[in-house]
């Protein structure tokens, strides 16, 4: 048991939880009838993907991604620096996700006012 690489367990855990989050979110989106729950599901999926993204960019024991003058060569050397791009992107994605959630919630409020219900299977005035 001493051979167990902690990092490996960690990465499995992170990847696993990312996939798990995505699946949970998917379940919520597809199965839950309440609008708010669906939106929560979407957020969970987002979170899962962000986690995944970060995990991909993370390199254990890496340094923080600050370029020096030899920045380029650092990359080509490979392993020492944590990839900064995913982190930057995830930040952006979180912001976007936030925006989407906000819009979605405002829509839910309006839908509730209009239909007096928040169950998605009852809001079907537009079809076919």
């Amino acid at each position: 048991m001493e051979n167990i690489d902690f990092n490996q367990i960690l990465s499995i855990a992170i990847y696993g939880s990312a996939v798990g989050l995505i699946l949970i979110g998917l379940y919520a989106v597809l199965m839950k009838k309440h609008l708010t729950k669906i939106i929560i599901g979407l957020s969970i999926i987002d979170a899962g993907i962000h986690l995944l993204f970060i995990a991909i960019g993370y390199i254990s024991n890496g340094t923080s991604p600050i370029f020096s003058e030899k920045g380029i060569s650092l990359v080509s050397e490979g392993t020492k620096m944590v990839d900064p791009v995913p982190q930057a992107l995830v930040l952006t994605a979180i912001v976007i996700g936030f925006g989407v959630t906000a819009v979605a919630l405002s829509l839910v409020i309006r839908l509730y006012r209009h239909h007096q219900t928040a169950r998605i299977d009852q809001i079907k005035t537009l079809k076919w």
Partner: protein
Amino acid sequence: MVVSPVHFIAVPLLAAFLMPILAKVNKNLLRIVPGIVLTYLGYVSVVLMNRVATEGTIIEVLAGWSAPWGINLVYTPFTGFLATLMIAMSFLIWLYSFKFKKVDDEPALKYFILQLMLTTGSVGLVLTGDIFNFFVFMEIIALSSYALTAFYRDRNGAEAAFKYLLIGAFASTLFLLAIVLLYSQVGTLNMAEISVRMHDVPTSMKVSILVLFLVGIGIEAEMFPLNGWAPDAYSQAPSPVGVAFAALVVKAGVYGLVRITYTLFGIEGSGIGPFLIIMGGITLVMAEITALKQTSLKRMLAYSSIGQMGFVLIAFGIGTHEAVFGAIFLMFNHAIIKGLLFMSGSYLVYNTPNKEIKYLSGYGMKMPVISLFFSLGALAIVGLPPFAGFWSKLYILLAAADGALYGLIALILVVSIIEIVYYFRVVGRLYFGKPAEGSIMRKPTVGGMIAMSILAIAILVVGFYPDIITGYIDAAASSILNTDEYIKNALGAVNELTPVENIIQ
């Protein structure tokens, strides 16, 4: 002032954020400013088009970071053509909606901001050379579309918007996931760079990424099982927004699909072509079948739009120069024709309950000009000569025939017959029957009339003299097909300025 592709994004975005302030200064400013902005962008795009024609692809590097690290804008004939088209349509939409929301200023402010953002998003999406920015612009489009769809409080806009949002958020999630996977494999976000490195990616991973991309962008491009949002959104959004969907959003989606399949994965021998043909075919058939049974004019137009996108997908799936030419031509035609149809159609159904077609009897006499525009659009969209739609259909069919896809030709033509049926039902109804009692006609605004006239003239001119546009489209088709050139151009900037020097600066 030196024009550059950056203006396409910077200027409208800036204007959009400045507009609340401007509105405080003078309420009329917020109506005028988008026009000025779009006119300026139109000027820019014309200049750039000419420059592209003479000098070739223009690469604009943002924030001093060159490819493959930095964010860059790639102005090829193809992207330039689409951007110009989008800006032109956007300008017409502005004209059309100039006085549309005079009821109170608050929505008008939001509306124009959102419209500018939508334009920004679409143009940015087309021009960007970076897959993550692609995603960002897609989200800009999506967010402004959600908001615009739900614009009217009194309609079912919210419902449509929610469906759109649900699917759209899904799309962006999948797209993001694809980007994540892609990045994990190739370690870059620049599309040209990705394209170069794509060979090394293992096939299963490549396929997964491709599928995620396809589904993610397919939602925007209204591919068949993913397009449930589209008819609702089209029909519930304010009519200029319907035009914007047809002319900007969907075009951006199709562009994305093309860029990803052609440039990133390569269309030849990859099985994507047949896949696109099949999915396009299914989309086409399903959409037209459904459109046939619609009772609401706007939903009918929406389904028709989906069908046209299916047609475009088919053409891109065939993938020869002729087919791509036809596809781009069709994108252009679809933008102007569907624009005209939405614009005139929404005047027609403005006061009818549920926008139902059956109330339109005899409008041909009450609203002669609008009806004429609508009929013109209907004739053009089903591809009857001598209008614009005919030529694109002809070229796609020619391409299909060159590929010996006779079944496909037959399918397209059969579907065209369905299309003819439902469009001519409406046209027929417009020109006979007595108008229902007490129906109030809405007088078109001057801006709207100008916009529609421009579109109608464009349809006629392109129909009679297609050569006016074929040169640009030819260039565009060559540029999308020639991946190597794209890569060379996009990465060529690297050779001019090495990254290190950049960093030092």
